[in-house]
C-alpha cells in the first residue's frame, strides 16, 4: 500500500494483468516510449515486443486487429492515444467489437479493453479533449468505464481486462497525476456497473463521473457548512448505468442535478434524466437540472474555462433545486 496517482495505478494494473499470458498491449507509441503519458512505461522491457506492441499509426487497424486477436483467444488491451482520435475506428468499435457475440450467435466474443485518455482542462490541441462517451453508450454490447480516482482506476481496469465483453476504459487526463490516494500494491478488482456514493446526503443528489467528482467534493463541503446535505454519486461506469443507485438516492433527496463534461444534448445526462422520469418522477419536487458542456465542438484553450461545467454553475442549479419543496 502506498500513495499513487491514476497513472501509477493504471500502470501497476497493467503489470498485474500481463502476468497472464493471454494479455497483450497494442497501440501507438505504447512499447518503446511507454505511451505519450507513460502509462505503459516499463511493460515492453518486462514482457517483450511481441506482447507490448507498437503499431502503425492507424486507429481502425488497432481496434480491428484487437478484435481479431480476442476472437483467437487473446485479451488485447488497445490504446487510443487521445480519445478524439477514436472516430477513425468508429466502425471497428461500434459495429464490430460490440457485435461479435450476437453476430456469431455466441460462438465468438470480443473481450477487448480500449484504453484512452480523455477530457478537458489540459490545454491540448483540437480533438484531444473531447468527452464523447455518450456516442458509444448508444451501441449495445460495449461497456464504458470512467474512473475518477487511483483506487478505482486500478480495480476497474483489472475488472475490465477480466470482463468477457468489450470495455471502453476512459482515463481522466486532467487528473492523471494531480490526485493521489492509498492504493494496494496487489491486484484487486472493482465491479463494473456499480456507482459509488462518494458523499451521503439528504437534500439533493448530484450524479457525475470523471474529473468533476474531484472538484464537486468541495462544492458538497461548502453546502455542508451551510447546513445543506448533498449526496454525491460517482457513476464510475456509464454503460451499463447503475440506475438503482441513482433512483434510490433521488427517492431520498427528491432533487437531482447531473454534471458532465460532455456536450449537453443527447449526453449520458439526458438518459439518466429520462430513466429517473420513468422510475421516480413522483419523488421529485422540481425539474432535473443538467450542468454540462455547451452544444458546440469542444473549444480551443482560451474558451475552455467558460465551456466546462464549474462550481459556480453547479451552485446556481443546486440553489434553484433547493427552492422547491
Amino acid at each position: 500500500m502506498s500513495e499513487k496517482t491514476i497513472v501509477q495505478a493504471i500502470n501497476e494494473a497493467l503489470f498485474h494483468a500481463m502476468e497472464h499470458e493471454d494479455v497483450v498491449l497494442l497501440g501507438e507509441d505504447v512499447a518503446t516510449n511507454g505511451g505519450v503519458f507513460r502509462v505503459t512505461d516499463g511493460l515492453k522491457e518486462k514482457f517483450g515486443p511481441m506482447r507490448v506492441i507498437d503499431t502503425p499509426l492507424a486507429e481502425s487497424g488497432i481496434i480491428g486487429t484487437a478484435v481479431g486477436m480476442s476472437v483467437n483467444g487473446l485479451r488485447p488491451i488497445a490504446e487510443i492515444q487521445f480519445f478524439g482520435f477514436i472516430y477513425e475506428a468508429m466502425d471497428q468499435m461500434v459495429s464490430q467489437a460490440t457485435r461479435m457475440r450476437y453476430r456469431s450467435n455466441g460462438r465468438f466474443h470480443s473481450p477487448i479493453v480500449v484504453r484512452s485518455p480523455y477530457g478537458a482542462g489540459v490545454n491540448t490541441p483540437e480533438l484531444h479533449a473531447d468527452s464523447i462517451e455518450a456516442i458509444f453508450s448508444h451501441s449495445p454490447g460495449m461497456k464504458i468505464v470512467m474512473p475518477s480516482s487511483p483506487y478505482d482506476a486500478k480495480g476497474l481496469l483489472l475488472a475490465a481486462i477480466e470482463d468477457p465483453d468489450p470495455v471502453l476504459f476512459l482515463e481522466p487526463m486532467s487528473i492523471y497525476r494531480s490526485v493521489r490516494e492509498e492504493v494496494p500494491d496487489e491486484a484487486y478488482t472493482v465491479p463494473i456497473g456499480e456507482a459509488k456514493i462518494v458523499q451521503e446526503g439528504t437534500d439533493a443528489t448530484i450524479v457525475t463521473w470523471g474529473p468533476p467528482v474531484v472538484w464537486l467534493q468541495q462544492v458538497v463541503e461548502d453546502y455542508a457548512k451551510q447546513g445543506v446535505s448533498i449526496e454525491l454519486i460517482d457513476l464510475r461506469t456509464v454503460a451499463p448505468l447503475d440506475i438503482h443507485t441513482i433512483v434510490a438516492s433521488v427517492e431520498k433527496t427528491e432533487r437531482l442535478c447531473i454534471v458532465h463534461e460532455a456536450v449537453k444534448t443527447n449526453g449520458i445526462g439526458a438518459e439518466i434524466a429520462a430513466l429517473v422520469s420513468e422510475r421516480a418522477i413522483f419523488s421529485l419536487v422540481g425539474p432535473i437540472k443538467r450542468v454540462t458542456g455547451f452544444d458546440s465542438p469542444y473549444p480551443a484553450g482560451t474558451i475552455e474555462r467558460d465551456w466546462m461545467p464549474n462550481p459556480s454553475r453547479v451552485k446556481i442549479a443546486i440553489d434553484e433545486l433547493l427552492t422547491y419543496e
Partner: protein
Amino acid sequence: MEMTKWLDEQGNLIGDVAVPSDDVLKTMYAEMKRGRMIDTKMFKMQRQGRMALVAPVSGQEAIQVASALVLNKEDWIAPSYRDSVATMLHGMPLENIIRYFKGYSDGGGAPEGVNVLPVQIIIAAQMLHATGVAFASKIKGEQARTVTFFGDGATSQGDFHEALNFAAVYKLPVIFVCQNNQYAISTPVSKQMNTETIVERAKAYNMAYEYVDGNDILACYDVMKRAYDKAQDGPVFVEAVTYRLGPHTTSDDPKKYREQTEEQQWQQKDPLVRMRAFLEARGLWDAAFERAIEDRASEEIEEAVAKIEETPPPTLADMLEKVYETPPTLIQEQIDGLRGNE
C-alpha cells in the same frame, strides 16, 4: 503482370505442370458443382419468398474451393458475404448458411472447432480481424493460417490498407484473397483504382503475392498451396481474376451496368465447364459422376431445408441475451418484459 494459368478455356492443360491426384481433381469439381447447386437453390428460394436476401457466388467457385482445400482444420477464415462455398468446405454447416440468408439471427454461429468468422457486411472490416487472428496465432506460437476473402471494391477501403500494412510490418501468417469479380455492385474496377491490377498494391507493402486466373481451379490450387507455405513467414496477397455470373444480390439487376455480351464472354470461362472438360479428357468425368454429385447435393439441401423449417428463428428476447455475456439490468428488464415474467 504474369497471370498463373493452368487450363485454357477449353480445359486443356497449358505447359508442363504437376497435376494433383485424380481424387483431388474429382473433389475439386464435385465441390464446385455442389456450391453452384446450393447457390442456385438459395436464389430460387429467395424468389419464392423463403429467403431474405442472397449474395450469389456463381462464377467464383474455383478460387473459393481451392482456398478451402489447402486449409487445415485449425486454420481460420474471415469471410465477406459472398464466400459461402469456401466457408462451407471449411466446416460451416449448410444449415447455418441458409439460416443466415433467411435472416435468422443465429446463422452466423460456426460450431465449436470450425474456425469461421461470421459473415461480414462492412466492406473490408473482416480483413483487420484476419490480421488480428493471425497476430494471435503468431503470439501463441501456433502454426494456423488465416485466410480472408474480399472483393475488388474492398481494396478502396481504409481497412484494406491498414490490414495489409499491419500484416506486412508484423509478418503475420495471413493470406489475403481478393476475388476480383470486376464489379462492386455496378462500379467497375476501372473506377475503383488507377492501377492495372490489384495485386500490385501488395508490392507496395512489400509482401509476397500471386496473380491468378480465378476461374482456373488448378491454377488457384497451385497458387493457394504456395501461399499457404509462404504465409508461415508473412502475409501473402492473392488476386484471383474472376466474374460474378449472377447479380450482386437478389435485389440487383446487372442489366443496368453491364452488357450481355460481356456476361456471355465470361460464361465461356465458367470454372465448372472448364474443369469438367479437363476431367472428361482424362476419363475422370462421366454422366454418372455428375448425377451422383447432383443427387448428393439435392439430398443435402433438402435435409438442411427440412431441418431449418422445423427450427424457428431466435426470438427478440433470445437475441437480447446475446448482446452481453450477462444481460445488464436494463436489458434484463427488457427481456423479462418480452418473456412476460416482469
